């Protein structure tokens, strides 16, 4: 099978990759580029540990061919904190004690980042709905939900502060 040359923009940096057509973005991120912050588990879109941002939207990188990502903006967990203000989310996860084994957390943070971009001050029900595609086998979710709500409040305050 032929290989394809791809130019991928990941966390603001261009990466030239030569790969087979059937390989997913997740394969390329982890195996070729060593970006192992994005996790791998079900490979069927069920668990969300492989979530990345594609043009600002949360997507499962296990269900996306790398070839589909040519010319699009990809942000992984390694790049999310370099987007101004998103450390707020990581800090909130720590402060709320939302991390146990940690395997689901990169995907949770990516989903929450995309969600808070669109819904700066969400309700608890909205947060739960937004994280439906991310499974956690440890925490029981409550502290994760609390962390996203807290991050929403904090960045809301900061934005309002900036505006003044």
């Amino acid at each position, binding site marked *: *099978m032929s290989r*394809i040359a791809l130019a991928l923009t990941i966390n603001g940096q261009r990466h030239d990759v030569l790969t087979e057509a*059937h390989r997913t973005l997740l394969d390329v991120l982890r195996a070729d580029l060593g970006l192992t912050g994005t996790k791998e588990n079900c490979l069927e*879109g069920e668990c969300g540990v492989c979530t990345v941002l*594609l043009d600002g939207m*949360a997507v499962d990188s296990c*269900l996306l061919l790398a*070839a*589909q990502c040519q010319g699009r903006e990809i942000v992984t967990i390694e790049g999310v904190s370099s987007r101004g203000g998103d450390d707020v989310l990581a800090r909130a996860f720590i402060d709320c004690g939302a991390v146990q084994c940690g395997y689901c957390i990169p995907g949770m943070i990516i989903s929450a980042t995309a969600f808070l971009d669109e819904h700066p001050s969400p309700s608890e029900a909205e947060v739960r709905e937004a994280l439906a595609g991310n499974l956690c086998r440890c925490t029981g979710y409550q502290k994760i939900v609390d962390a996203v709500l807290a991050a929403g409040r904090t960045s809301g305050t900061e934005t309002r502060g900036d505006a003044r």
Partner: protein
Amino acid sequence: MSFDFHEPASIAEAVALAARFGTEARFLAGGTDLLVQIRRKRVAPRHVVSLHRVPGLDTIDANGEIRLGALVTHRALERAPAFQGALRALVEGARVVGGHQIRNVGTVGGNIVNASPAADVVPVLLVLDAAVTCVGPNGAREMKLDEFLLGPGETALRPDELLTSIRFPAPALRSATGFLKAGRRRAMEISVVCVAVWLSLDGDDRCAGVRISLGAVGPRALRSCDRPVESSPRTVSRSRTSAHRQPTGGFSWKHSFRARSGQR
């Protein structure tokens, strides 16, 4: 899994590739069904024809008659201002498909062509009396979605045909739609049953028409047949009990479906 990847830049090019490779080729829209099926070895295409560079397939046109390009995502349906009123069932159907990650890439065309009996947007399109346009090497043809869907994973689409758009009439002045899904949990769950309803009233508050579709309870989504409905004025706005007592025209499943399942 291993295949060649093609990125046609027009409908004609996409169809030519499909015609050339026949059953060895699969179109790729959001990939949320196709990649899972490839991984489970249910299908093993030698050629994957991505639709992302084909222009014009991802637009929603709602000036008068509604036209959805096949690549319109569930995300776009959920957020379309045109569907917040009488066509709300489209929003309600689209927003229970998987989680955000799935809705951000999964498309309405993929939902239809994949032909899962539990596809959530399909019952909504059935009650809206939608028609689909398919383009093949010999041009376009249009058929009712109700005739397009044959059974689990089975449609009237030929291997060299591309589903390009879905259209249905603009909602009548006094009409409404609704969609409900029941699964074993509240989100990220395949429908145990889902139901879509379209209802319209005439100027005297009589029920002028009703269509009901049920998903996940048969080999494909079922739709009540169109029959005139007998109803007295204000049946709908009166109390629930009196509405229940009101006889309707009754409905049986579309004969085409009955005839087909009878053959098996």
